C-alpha cells in the first residue's frame, strides 16, 4: 500500500516537472502583466487592458478556430452583442438597471446562446461556407445595432457600463481585465488538455477516425460554441466599459480580423501562440503610429505570409521538443505478452465472449455497381476472421458497412440478439466495435500518446463543465486514459515515441498507433483494414503474433488483408469474396484446398 502511494506521488512530481516548461511562458507573461503598472503610464494601461479583453474573446474563439478548425471570421458580432447587452442592462433604458457584475454574466448567457446560433451551420457546412455565414452574421448585427435606435441608440450610441471602485481607475480596471484573462486562459487550457480538446482536434484532422471512436461532433461543437460565445460576450461587456461610449462604428470588421488572425499567427492547436499573437497584434499599430491606418493591411499581409511560409505559426516556432531528431532505423517490437497486464473490462451488457457479429443478406450498390451482393457473414468472439478477395470484391466495403459508414440497402446487421443500426458510425464504439483504416487516419499535429488517448474518449466520465473547471473527475479521467494509453503503446512497441508528434513517424508506425487507439476501447470486435500493408517481413510476423494475442483475450478480429501468408498463419476462419459475394468460407486448410480459390487467387 505504502509503495503504491510513493509511486503515485513520484508520478505526480514527474508529471509536474513535465508540465513546468509548458507553464513557464504563461507565468512569465502574467508576471510582466502584473509589473506593467509600475514601469509605464496610463497610455499603456489602455493598451494592456485592450489586449487582456481581446484575449478573453480569443481564448474562447481559439477553441473554435484553432482546435476545432472552424473558420469563424465574424466574432466581432458576439463582441458587439455582449457590449450592447451589458450597456443596455446597466443603463436601464429598457428595464430596471442591473449592477454591472450581474449584467456581465447575463451578457455571457446571451452570448452563449448566440454563439450556438452562429455556430450551428458548422455542423453541416464546409469551411468556406461557414466562413461566409459568420461573415454574414457580423454584417447583420452591425445593421441591427444601427437600426434599433430605441435600445442601442442607433448611430449616436450608448454609454458603456461603469465599474465600481476599485475598478474605476485605469490600473484598477487593468487588473480586473488581466484577472479575467488569466481565468479564461486557465479554463481554455483545461478544455484543451481534456478529452474534449483532443476530440476537437480529432474531428478537425481525422473526422472519419473520430467517428469510429464514438466522438459525437454535434455535442462537442455545441459545447465549445456555448463557451466561446459566452467569453466573447463577456469580453464585449468589458470592452464597452473601456470604450466608455459605444457606437456600431466601434465594432468594425477589422476587429474580427484581428481576433481571427491572432489565432492563425499563433498557430492552430496551441494556447500560448494565439496569446502572443493577440498581444503582438494589439501592440503593433501602437508602436508604429503611421501604420495605424494600414493595420488591416498589415494583419492581412501577416496572415498571407504565415499561410504561405509558416502554416504552424508561432507555436511551431516555439515547439523545440519536436525538433530533436528521432532515431533512424527504428524497429517496432510489439510485446503481446504485456496485454496480459491490462485487465479486460466487463461493463454492463458488454460481456465479451458470448456475442456474434452477424451480417445477413447485405446488399449495397454504388450506382449500378453492386459492391456487396447478398453477403452472409458471422464473426465469432475469440476468433481471427480473415476476409480476402481480389480488388473490388467488397472487402473494405464490408468493413465500412459494419462500422456504419455505409448503410446497406437491404439486409440486417446484428450483434448477438440486438440489431446494429445501419449507418451511424459514431454509435459503434459504445457497442464495442473498433477499427483501423487502410490509409492510417492519425492526427498528425497531436502527439502519439494523445492519438492513442483519443480511442478512449467515450470512456471519459467528466462532463464538459467538469473539464472546464478541472474538477476531480476530470483528473481521474485524464490519469486513467493516459495510463492505459501508455500501457497500450507498450503493447504495440511504441512507448519510446509517446511524446513525439504523430506526423513525424513512419507509415508502419502509424499502423500500430491505430491498433493501439482501437484497443483503448477494449473492443469485443476489432476490424483491421490491411494492417500489414507497407510493413516489413519481420514486422508482419510480429503483427501476426500481436493479432493472435488480442484474439485470445476474447476479442473477435476481422482482418482484411492481401498477404496470404499472414491470413493462413493466424486466421481461424477465412471468407473469400468475389464481386460482392462469398466465393468460399471455412478454415484456412479448407480454403487452401478450395479449387476455385486456388486457381483464381493463389495462383497455384
Amino acid at each position: 500500500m505504502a509503495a503504491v502511494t510513493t509511486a503515485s506521488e513520484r508520478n505526480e512530481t514527474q508529471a509536474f516537472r513535465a508540465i513546468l516548461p509548458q507553464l513557464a511562458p504563461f507565468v512569465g507573461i502574467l508576471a510582466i502583466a502584473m509589473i506593467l503598472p509600475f514601469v509605464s503610464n496610463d497610455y499603456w494601461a489602455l493598451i494592456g487592458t485592450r489586449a487582456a479583453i481581446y484575449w478573453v474573446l480569443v481564448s474562447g474563439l481559439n477553441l473554435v478556430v484553432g482546435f476545432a478548425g472552424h473558420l469563424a471570421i465574424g466574432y466581432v458580432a458576439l463582441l458587439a452583442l455582449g457590449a450592447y447587452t451589458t450597456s443596455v442592462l446597466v443603463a436601464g433604458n429598457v428595464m430596471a438597471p442591473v449592477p454591472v457584475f450581474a449584467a456581465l454574466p447575463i451578457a455571457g448567457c446571451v452570448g452563449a446562446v448566440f454563439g450556438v446560433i452562429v455556430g450551428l451551420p458548422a455542423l453541416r457546412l464546409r469551411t468556406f461556407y461557414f466562413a461566409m455565414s459568420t461573415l454574414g452574421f457580423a454584417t447583420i448585427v452591425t445593421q441591427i445595432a444601427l437600426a434599433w435606435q430605441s435600445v442601442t441608440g442607433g448611430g449616436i450610441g450608448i454609454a458603456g457600463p461603469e465599474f465600481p471602485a476599485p475598478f474605476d481607475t485605469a490600473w484598477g480596471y487593468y487588473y480586473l481585465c488581466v484577472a479575467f484573462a488569466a481565468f479564461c486562459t486557465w479554463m481554455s487550457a483545461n478544455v484543451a488538455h481534456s478529452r474534449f480538446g483532443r476530440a476537437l482536434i480529432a474531428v478537425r484532422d481525422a473526422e472519419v477516425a473520430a467517428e469510429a471512436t464514438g466522438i459525437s461532433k454535434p455535442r462537442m461543437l455545441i459545447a465549445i460554441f456555448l463557451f466561446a460565445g459566452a467569453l466573447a460576450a463577456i469580453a464585449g461587456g468589458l470592452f464597452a466599459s473601456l470604450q466608455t461610449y459605444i457606437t456600431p462604428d466601434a465594432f468594425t470588421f477589422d476587429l474580427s480580423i484581428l481576433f481571427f488572425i491572432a489565432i492563425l499567427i499563433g498557430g492552430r492547436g496551441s494556447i500560448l501562440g494565439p496569446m502572443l499573437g493577440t498581444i503582438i497584434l494589439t501592440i503593433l499599430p501602437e508602436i508604429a503610429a503611421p501604420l495605424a491606418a494600414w493595420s488591416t493591411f498589415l494583419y492581412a499581409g501577416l496572415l498571407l505570409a504565415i499561410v504561405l511560409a509558416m502554416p504552424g505559426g508561432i507555436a511551431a516556432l516555439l515547439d523545440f521538443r519536436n525538433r530533436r531528431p528521432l532515431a533512424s532505423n527504428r524497429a517496432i517490437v510489439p510485446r503481446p505478452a504485456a496485454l496480459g497486464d491490462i485487465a479486460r473490462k466487463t461493463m454492463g451488457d458488454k460481456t465479451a465472449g458470448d456475442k456474434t457479429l452477424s451480417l445477413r443478406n447485405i446488399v449495397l450498390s454504388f450506382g449500378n455497381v453492386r459492391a456487396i451482393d447478398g453477403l452472409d457473414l458471422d464473426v465469432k468472439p475469440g476468433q481471427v476472421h480473415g476476409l480476402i478477395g481480389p480488388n473490388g470484391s467488397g472487402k473494405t466495403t464490408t468493413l465500412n458497412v459494419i462500422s456504419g459508414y455505409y448503410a446497406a440497402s437491404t439486409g440486417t446487421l446484428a450483434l448477438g440478439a440486438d440489431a446494429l443500426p445501419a449507418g451511424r458510425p459514431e454509435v459503434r464504439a459504445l457497442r464495442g466495435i473498433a477499427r483501423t483504416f487502410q490509409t492510417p487516419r492519425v492526427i498528425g499535429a497531436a502527439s502519439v500518446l494523445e492519438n492513442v488517448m483519443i480511442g478512449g474518449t467515450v470512456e471519459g466520465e467528466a462532463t464538459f463543465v467538469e473539464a472546464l473547471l478541472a474538477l476531480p473527475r476530470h483528473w481521474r479521467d485524464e490519469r486513467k486514459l493516459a495510463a492505459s494509453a501508455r500501457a497500450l503503446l507498450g503493447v504495440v512497441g511504441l512507448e519510446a515515441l509517446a511524446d513525439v508528434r504523430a506526423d513525424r513517424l513512419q507509415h508502419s508506425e502509424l499502423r500500430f498507433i491505430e491498433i493501439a487507439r482501437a484497443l483503448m476501447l477494449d473492443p469485443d470486435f476489432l476490424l483491421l483494414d490491411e494492417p500489414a500493408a507497407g510493413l516489413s517481413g519481420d514486422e508482419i510476423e510480429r503483427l501476426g503474433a500481436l493479432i493472435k494475442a488480442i484474439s485470445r483475450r476474447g476479442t473477435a478480429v476481422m482482418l482484411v488483408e492481401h498477404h496470404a501468408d499472414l491470413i493462413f498463419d493466424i486466421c481461424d476462419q477465412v471468407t473469400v469474396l468475389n464481386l460482392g459475394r462469398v466465393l468460399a468460407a471455412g478454415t484456412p486448410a479448407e480454403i487452401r484446398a478450395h479449387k476455385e480459390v486456388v486457381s483464381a487467387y493463389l495462383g497455384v
Partner: protein
Amino acid sequence: MLASILATGLAAGAIYALVGITYNTMFSTSRVMSFTAGQLAMLGGVFGSMFMLKMGMPILVGFFLTLLGCAIIGVITEFVAVRPVLKSLDQHLYVLSTLALALMIQQVTAIKWGTEPQPFPRLIGWGSGVWDEKFWLPVAACAITIIGLEYLYRRTLVGRAFLAIAEDNFAARALGLPERNLRVASYALAGIVGGVAGFSGGELLLAFFANGALLNFYGFVPVALGGLGNNRGAIIGGLALGLFQQAANFLVGGIFSSVAVFALFIVVLLAAPQGLFGSSTARRV
C-alpha cells in the same frame, strides 16, 4: 411599386449572378473558392470611375482598361493566393490566403480611393424611371456574359479545355493539357467577369470600397443556392436573390431584408448543403 421591385431586383440579381459566375470560373479550374470574387466586382466600379471620371478617358477605353485591370488582379490572385496552397487543398488554406489578399485589396482601395462612395458616370444615357440604364445595364451585361461564356465553353478549343479540367483535372493533365496556363487564364477570365459585374453595376452601386465585402456575400449566396461550379444555378439563384432582397427591402425595410437574406441562406444551406442544383458529395471512407 411592383415595377420598382422588378427593376432593382433584377439589376441587383444580375450583379450577384455575375459575381457568382466569377466564383464559379475560379472554382472550375482550381477547386478553390476565392474571397477576391467580390473585390473584383468592387474594383470594376472603382476602376471605371477612376479611368472615366478622374482621368476623363472615353467610355470604351475606360471599359477596356477596367477589364484589363481586373484581369490582372485575377491573375495576381492565382499567383499569390491560390497556386502556393493548391498542393494541400484538403487543409483549406486557400480560405485564409484568399481572405488575406481580399482584405489587402480592400484596404488599399479604402486608403488610395477613399472610404466615401464616389459617383460612376452615365454610360449610354438611354431610358428613365424603371427603364433607366442603371437597371437594365447589369441585366444586359449578365445576358451577354452568359452567351459569351456558353460560346467559349461549347465552341472553342480553349473553352473545351476549361471544361475538361473542371471535369477531371488528372485526366486532362494526362492528355497533355497545359493545366497551369489554363488555370491562370481562367483567373484572368474570372477577373473580366467580375470587372463586367462592377462596371455594369457601377451606376447602381457606385464606386465604393465596401462593396467588395458586400458582393462577396451576396455573390456567394447564388453559388451556394445553385451548387458549386454551376453557372445556370448561379444565374437563377442570383436573380431570385435580387428579387427576394428587393421585395423584402420595399415591403419591410432595409435591415430586415438583410436579416431575411441571411436567414434564407442559412436555412437553404442547412437543408441542402450541396445547393439546390448541385450534385451530392464525394466518398469519405
